[in-house]
């Protein structure tokens, strides 16, 4: 009797806890995301489908997943999956053969490209933006103007209060509170952080030296006790939304999804610009002239020209995100599948962009078509 009672209690408890865990996991799975999430639909046809394994950057992932869904509807014999791994992990797995196509926010570094010259291609597929977001009680839907120099001083810990004269002078119409700024950055090494720190360096080189540029820089404000690192974009968004008087940077799509305040940033022409499809395209157009003419070229410097570009309407915190592709695929079927995907993105994908991203300019779409042709040519079709 005693044992039966014990068993019954244990089973009921286990069921309750599994139920709670599943509920918590589903809430968190959609929020925190990242780290090995993969989505594949089951094949609908009886003949064996071709599988294309993609993975990498989380920055463009919402757009890629939307594209993949539409592409697979039109091409039922091709199954594409995209794993959220991070740019670094995506590129490593591409080179060790686990992935067919890698998504990477930064282009391949020069030395890596040289090592694989002629065997690897890169195409910029999207223009994304990093936004500066803040949470100031009472001012959350007022647009603040911020400049690279002021942001550099905030992230250095030099500007400590919201009503510092250097911030106030950029926002004469807004009464800023006298409260310490809680500074949020990324806990993990990330492409978004690289874009943000590259921007700080280009906008204020004497304040933000190149030693502080990188995926995981040592932010000087970190030691002050009023800074924290969030895990991934959702982590930063969560920290900013939970801590009043905080400032942070996230991808534009996350800020839109969570209805967060977005600052207007001073661009190279001196105008304060908020991100919009137009301001992103304007930045992309002026940077496109510095891209290589062929997908086989060296893209390693392309972020330098698109971050803090010229153009009076350009939003300064913009970046390309790339797909890294092989020239030679092991089977004709795979080569044809990858080529079809690239052509689809160039022709249809770029016309259907979800909020938070902008399409690449026309001349850049040509790179995708050229890459597709190179793959087909190498496969002999």
């Amino acid at each position, binding site marked *: 009797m005693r044992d039966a009672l014990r068993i019954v*209690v244990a089973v009921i408890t286990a069921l309750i806890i599994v139920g709670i865990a599943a509920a918590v996991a589903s809430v968190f799975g959609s929020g925190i995301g990242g780290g090995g999430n993969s989505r594949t639909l089951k094949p609908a046809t009886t003949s064996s489908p071709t599988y294309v394994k993609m993975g990498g950057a989380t920055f463009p992932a919402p757009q890629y997943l939307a594209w993949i869904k539409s592409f697979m509807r039109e091409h039922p014999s091709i199954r594409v999956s995209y794993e959220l791994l991070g740019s*670094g992990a995506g590129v490593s797995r591409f080179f060790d053969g686990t992935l067919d196509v890698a998504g990477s926010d930064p282009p391949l570094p020069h030395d890596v490209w040289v090592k694989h010259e002629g065997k690897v291609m890169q195409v910029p597929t999207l223009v994304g933006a990093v936004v500066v977001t803040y949470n100031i009680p009472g001012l959350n839907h007022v647009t603040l103007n911020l400049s690279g120099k002021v942001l550099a001083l905030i992230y250095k810990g030099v500007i400590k209060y919201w009503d510092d004269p250097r911030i106030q002078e950029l926002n004469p119409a807004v009464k800023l509170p006298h409260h310490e700024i809680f500074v949020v950055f990324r806990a993990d090494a990330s492409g978004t952080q690289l874009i943000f720190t590259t921007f700080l360096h280009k906008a204020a080189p004497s304040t933000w030296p190149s030693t502080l540029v990188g995926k995981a820089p040592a932010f000087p404000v970190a030691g002050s006790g009023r800074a924290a690192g969030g895990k991934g974009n959702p982590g930063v968004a969560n920290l900013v939304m939970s801590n009043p008087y*905080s400032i942070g940077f996230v991808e534009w799509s996350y800020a839109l999804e969570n209805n967060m305040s977005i600052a207007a940033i001073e661009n190279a022409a001196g105008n304060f610009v908020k991100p919009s499809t137009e301001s992103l395209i304007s930045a992309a157009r002026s940077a496109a002239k510095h891209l290589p003419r062929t997908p086989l070229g060296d893209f390693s410097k392309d972020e330098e020209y698109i971050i803090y570009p010229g153009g009076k309407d350009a939003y300064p915190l913009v970046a390309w995100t790339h797909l890294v592709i092989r020239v030679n695929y092991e089977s004709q079927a795979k080569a044809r599948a990858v080529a079809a995907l690239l052509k689809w993105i160039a022709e249809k994908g770029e016309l259907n962009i979800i909020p938070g991203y902008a399409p690449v300019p026309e001349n850049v779409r040509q790179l995708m078509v050229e890459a597709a042709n190179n793959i087909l040519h190498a496969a002999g079709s």
Partner: protein
Amino acid sequence: MTLLAPSALVIAFYVLLVRLLAGYSIPVFRRYGASFVLSSVWNPGSASYGILPALMGTAVTSVLAAAIALPVSLSMVVFLNEYCPSIVARVVASVTTVMGGLPSIVYGLWGALVLPELLRSYVMVPLHKYLGFLPPFSCAPVSGWTFFTAGVLLAIMITPYMFSLVHEAYASVPRKYREALLAISARPYVIAREFIKMLWPAVIGALLLGLGRAAGETIAVSLVVGNVNAVPYCLFLPGQTISSLIANNFPEASSYPLMLNALYAAASVLLVVGMVLNIAGLALMSRWRSITG
């Protein structure tokens, strides 16, 4: 002979583990030496790797977790065994034992959602106000994402496990001791005190295992600790632990030369600290056993 195989397999596994860790870590120790463990500078861009803040963070959060979990689990064991009506006690003990066997990440995720703001307003601010003269509480809590929150979260995660270990030991004390104590009309409090004294090795064992679990938690901690490379001279500061450092940096470790090696080296340091603690604990337990006979 076939019984030798599983033991040999386990030993082989540990040897391979140590070899892998050593293989990756040695370049870092060769290059940085003791400064790897003593330096506070973690700047991958300039190839400076120092894990002192992370190591101190692991120590502080694990010790805080054990300091909270041990009294709570011991009190729970005593209450359920001596004061609670037996039906309720059996149900609660069974439920908690089952909870102790669950992956603690389940509690970690819940805690990450709920704890930071709650702890800050209701615990950290009063502690700083009234006990601010004590060094661990001396800094004003700006946000809820701190070492303190991580310590409390870890305590929540290890308490059911520690409870189940001590409870089992408590329940296995031979009936004759209880009968002897009852014969001299000992109050429940006295019975509990005598039993705990007898069980001290088990309590230490539970403490060490709980500490080990706390030191190894990664994702749950990284969600609440603040992820900032800061030395924990005060509990209300954001910081990090070695596990959260590794979890945060591992995916992109290939972007920096030596970063992967540095992370493996940090894991090796954690392994060594854990081994030292466990050996000390086992030595303590065997000494107690020889004293109590």
